[in-house]
C-alpha cells in the first residue's frame, strides 16, 4: 500500500520549450481514489504519466521529486521496470493487445516470469476483480478485439491488476465508453480502492464527484487546489476552482 508525494515537480517537453507542470506539490493518500480535474492541456495527464515515468516516452524532462513509499522514483537508482510493475496504468482508449483474452491478462505475469501453473489462477483472479470473469470465462481464447469497448476497458484493468500493482493510474478511462459501461467501471473503481491506491484523470466533474475521495484541480500546469472531494466541490477556496466547477470555463 502506497502513498505518493511530489515535491517541486516540474515537467518540460521539447528541450524545455513547454513547461507542462509547474512546482506541483501534492500528497496522495493510500486506499483512496484521487481525481485529477481541469481543462484540456492543464497538465493533469502529464502529472499522471510522471507517476510511472511514462512521460519519458514522449521526450519529457522531469525535475523535482516523486516519492512513492518513501523513495524518490527520479533519484536515478529506481528501476523503471520495478516501478511500472508497482504502478499500473489504464489508458484513455481501451488498448488490449490483438491476442486472446487469456494472453492479454497473462502478458504481464509472463514478462515478469510467473510460472506456468500459477498463471491460470492469476488470470481468473484478475478477471474476477475486474468484474469481467462471468462474461468471458467461456471465451478465454477469443481475440480481445472482438469484445465491446466497455469489456475491452475492463480487460485492460484486469491486465493491469495481473502484475499485482499497488497503485493504479486511470487516464480518462471512460471517455470512449457508453453510459452503461461507464457505470460499471465507476462501480469497479469503488471496489478496487479497498486494495489499491487509485489516481484517475477525468474530464467529467460528475464522475469525479461520484467516485473520488480527493480531488486535485489543475490549471495551466499548476496545481490550484487539492482537498477532499466534497469540500472542494461545495466550498472551493480558489476563485478559479469555483469558476471551473460551476462551468464558467473549460
Amino acid at each position, binding site marked *: 500500500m502506497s502513498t505518493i508525494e511530489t515535491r517541486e515537480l516540474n515537467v518540460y517537453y521539447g528541450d524545455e520549450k513547454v513547461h507542462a507542470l509547474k512546482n506541483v506539490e501534492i500528497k496522495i493518500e493510500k486506499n483512496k481514489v484521487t481525481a485529477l480535474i481541469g481543462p484540456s492541456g492543464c497538465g493533469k495527464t502529464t502529472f499522471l504519466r510522471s507517476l510511472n515515468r511514462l512521460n519519458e516516452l514522449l521526450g519529457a524532462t522531469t525535475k523535482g521529486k516523486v516519492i512513492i513509499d518513501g523513495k524518490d522514483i527520479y533519484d536515478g537508482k529506481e528501476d523503471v521496470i520495478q*516501478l511500472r510493475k508497482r504502478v499500473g496504468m489504464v489508458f484513455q482508449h481501451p488498448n488490449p*493487445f490483438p491476442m486472446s483474452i487469456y494472453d492479454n491478462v497473462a502478458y*504481464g505475469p509472463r514478462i515478469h516470469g510467473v510460472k506456468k501453473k500459477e498463471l491460470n489462477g492469476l488470470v481468473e483472479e484478475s478477471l474476477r476483480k475486474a468484474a469481467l470473469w462471468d462474461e468471458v470465462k467461456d471465451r478465454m481464447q477469443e481475440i480481445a478485439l472482438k469484445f465491446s469497448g466497455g469489456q475491452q476497458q475492463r480487460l485492460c484493468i484486469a491486465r493491469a491488476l495481473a502484475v499485482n500493482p499497488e497503485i493504479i493510474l486511470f487516464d480518462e478511462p471512460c471517455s470512449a465508453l457508453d453510459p452503461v459501461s461507464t457505470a460499471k467501471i465507476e462501480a469497479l473503481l469503488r471496489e478496487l480502492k479497498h486494495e489499491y491506491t487509485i489516481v484517475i484523470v477525468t474530464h467529467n466533474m460528475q464522475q469525479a464527484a461520484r467516485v473520488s475521495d480527493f480531488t486535485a484541480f489543475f490549471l495551466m500546469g499548476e496545481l490550484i487546489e487539492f482537498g477532499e472531494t466534497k469540500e472542494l466541490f461545495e466550498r472551493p477556496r480558489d476563485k478559479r476552482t469555483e469558476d471551473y466547477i460551476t462551468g464558467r470555463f473549460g
Partner: protein
Amino acid sequence: MTGNKKITEKLVMIGMYVAAFITVAALFTVVGYVYVKGIGAISLDFLLDYPYRLEFGGIFPQIVGTIYLAAVCLLFAVPLGVASAIYLSEYAPDNMITGTVRFFVECLAGIPSIVIGLFGLIFLVHYLGLGISLLSGGLTLGFMILPWTIRASEEAIKAVPGSYREASLALGASKWQTIRNVVLKNAYPGIISGILLGCGKAIGDTAIVLFTAGSGLEWFLPMAITDPVGSLTVYTYILATQAHTEAGILRAFGASLVLLTMFFMVTVTALYLRNRYVRRMSGW
C-alpha cells in the same frame, strides 16, 4: 443534363473499362502465352536432367541454383534488414541523421539492379576475388533487396499502434520485451510478406545473376559456395537470345514457366499474408 453530355459520360466510362481491361489482359496474355507454349516442354526429364550442348537436356541445376541464390540472398539481407528496421523505428532518435539515412535507403531502393550488378561484378567478383559464384551472386542480390527489406519491415513495425507499446511498458515490460512480445509479434506477417516480395525480386532478377553468379547453362550443381551456379532467368535469357532451334526456344519457354510458377507461389503467399495483416491491424 443534355443528351450530348450523357453520351460523353457513357464514352468516358467505356474508355475506363477498356483501359482496365487492357491492364488485366496484358498480364494474362504474357502469362498465358508462356504457359501455353511452355507446358509442352515440361516433363520429369526436363525438370530433373542436366543441360548439355546449349539447347538440350533439362534444367535441374537451374532450378536448384535459383533456390540457392535466393537462400544466400535472404540469409544475408533478412537479418541485416530486419535489425536495421527495428533500430531505425524503435531506438534511433528522430533527428536529421535518421531522416537522412531513411532518405538514402529510399533512394537506394530505386537503384536499377543493373547498377548493383555492376558493383557486384567489379567489387565482389574482381576486387575481392570471390569469382563468379553462388556467394557473389547471393550477396549482390542481397544488396539489391536490402533496402526493400528495411522499408517493408519498417512499415510493418510502424503499423503496430503506439498504444500497444505504451500498454506493455506500463505493465513493467522492458523495451526489448515490448518489441519482441508486442511489436514483432504483431508486425511479423507484414515483415514476412515484405521478405517474400524481396525473395520474388531475387528469383526474377537476371542482370545481377548474369554478372556475378554464372552463365546460366551450368550443367552441374554447385559443390561449394564459391562455385558458379545456374539460374532459370539467365538460362531463359541465353536460350531466348542465342538458341535458334525449336528445341532451344521450347526449353526457354519451359524454364520461363517454372520461373513464373515459383515467382507466383512466393508472391501469392506474400500478398495473402499482407492482406491478413492489414485486416488484423484494422481490428478483425
